């Protein structure tokens, strides 16, 4: 009972401190905007709120959000459905590992943005290049963490399972996969964050909808408060998505790492 109370108290104080931090930040911003008195260089928080209301009522904000989210998840699913199996196969096969790992080491340092010219050449403008860019961005964190999860398999666990009658198939499903799962999920969380950042980059250049595109267009028409709406929505949604995946991870996917 006391534990529950303490938990509530600590959640409460965290909430309080967080709100205070945000309030101070907004205050400084409002002060700076009032002193500067230039809506193009730095719109006030209040005018950003008005712009939010305006973009929500005409429905354009929701449309852009939907376009971006679809792209992020498309890229994220493409990336994870290739990266996770590939990483696990490479973790268990020395020959394939030797064959593929140098290639991966060479491709990994190339930032997703450097792929945009090729993506546009190959796929034109619109959704496909954005899927491509987001999946490139999500691939490496998912792959590298899954690989680490696959190689961190403990010999004791394998031996224990074999001495309890587990054959190769049971070993794969009941030992290898669950033992790699915590790292796989960490990779997925980081990969989702990377994909979310990359979608904005892709849309700045290679798309005609979405939050990145909306930011770019508003910059050209000097509607800075719209730029700020786009930026804050990106921050907010990113935090919510990664936070939700974190909760899912702790409660549902790998509860054994976070016993309550």
């Amino acid at each position, binding site marked *: 009972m006391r534990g529950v109370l303490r938990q509530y108290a600590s959640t409460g104080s965290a909430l309080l401190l967080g709100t205070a931090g945000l309030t101070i930040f907004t205050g400084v911003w409002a002060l700076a905007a009032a002193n500067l008195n230039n809506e193009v260089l730095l719109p006030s928080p209040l005018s950003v709120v008005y712009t939010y209301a305006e973009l929500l009522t005409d429905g354009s904000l929701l449309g852009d959000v939907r376009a971006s989210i679809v792209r992020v998840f498309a890229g994220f699913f493409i990336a994870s459905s290739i990266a996770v199996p590939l990483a696990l196969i490479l973790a268990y096969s020395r020959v394939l590992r030797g064959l593929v790992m140098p290639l991966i080491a060479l491709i990994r340092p190339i930032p997703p943005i450097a792929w945009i010219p090729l993506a546009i050449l190959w796929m034109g403008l619109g959704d496909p290049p954005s899927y491509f860019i987001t999946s490139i961005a999500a691939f490496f964190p998912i792959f590298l963490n899954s690989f680490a999860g696959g190689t961190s398999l*403990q010999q*004791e*666990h394998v*031996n*224990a*399972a*074999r*001495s*309890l*009658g*587990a*054959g190769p198939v*049971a070993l794969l499903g*009941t*030992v290898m996969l*669950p*033992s790699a*799962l915590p790292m796989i999920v960490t990779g997925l969380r980081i990969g989702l964050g990377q994909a979310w950042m990359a979608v904005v980059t892709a849309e700045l250049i290679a798309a005609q909808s979405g939050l990145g595109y909306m930011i770019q267009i508003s910059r050209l028409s000097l509607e800075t408060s719209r730029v700020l709406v786009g930026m804050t929505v990106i921050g907010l949604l990113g935090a919510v998505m990664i936070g939700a995946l974190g909760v899912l991870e702790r409660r549902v996917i*790998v*509860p*054994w*790492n976070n*016993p309550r």
Partner: protein
Amino acid sequence: MARGTSPNTFRAAQRPAGTPLGHAPHLHVVGAEARSQAESAPRLHLDNVTVRFSSRAVPAVEDISLSIGRGEFVALLGPSGCGKSTLLNVLAGFCSPTQGHVHLDGEPLTAPSAKCGVVFQKHSLFPWMTALDNVAFGPRRLGMPDPRRIAQELLDTVGLGHVANSWPSSLSGGMQQRVGIARALATRPPVLLMDEPFGALDAQTRSLMQEELLSIWDKLRPTVVFVTHDIEEAIFLADRVVVMQAFPGRIAQEFAIPFMRPRSAEIMDSAKFIESRREIADIIRIEARKSFR
């Protein structure tokens, strides 16, 4: 009796008895007649087993022959590097001998099977399964009926029925090892192999676990091979203590342990116990000095 030798030592050339100066031997050094008893219907039989790792010049285990009877509790005792864990891995089928053969109930033993339950030193519970699912793992793999009930009963036996639904990471080291023992016993294996299972526990927990193990063994009577470097633990638990020497790993001497069962921790204070401990410690010291040179 000449110093350093004993007439009833089996293969005296390889296994000098080393009766210590000034002490009459309290322990019965196992000789040929006792060995033939175990050999009449051995549960486990090792025949000139040698294990050589390619990375090392000296074999980890060299030319070991050993018979272990049904329901016998044997301790493999020796310093680190004497090959006792390697020998246990051979018995578990995790590692195959470079030379020689291992038989379980007369059948050649080549791969891990549910006939040999294994308790590891530490961290061997599956962290992604609750205590109950860990114990139920073996019965599920073997398609035994009602694995959850089997697991719950075994957890009750080791006194952990109340933490059946806990994750291993939330259990203490001693509790984890008890779950490990329950898991190894869940498939009703005729043989239980234990690799320094209490080595990572504090002294109080270890002594409680030793008594707990004896009471479980008393109920189920599996054949136990127990690896340890703790002389008192070996004497307290085992019917027979096999002392090993290092570089290469060989059997230095075997001792039959005379204490009646059931045993309680009080016997560790008896003069007979202390005498036995001294006798075995002397052997280990002599062997250690030899390989030190």
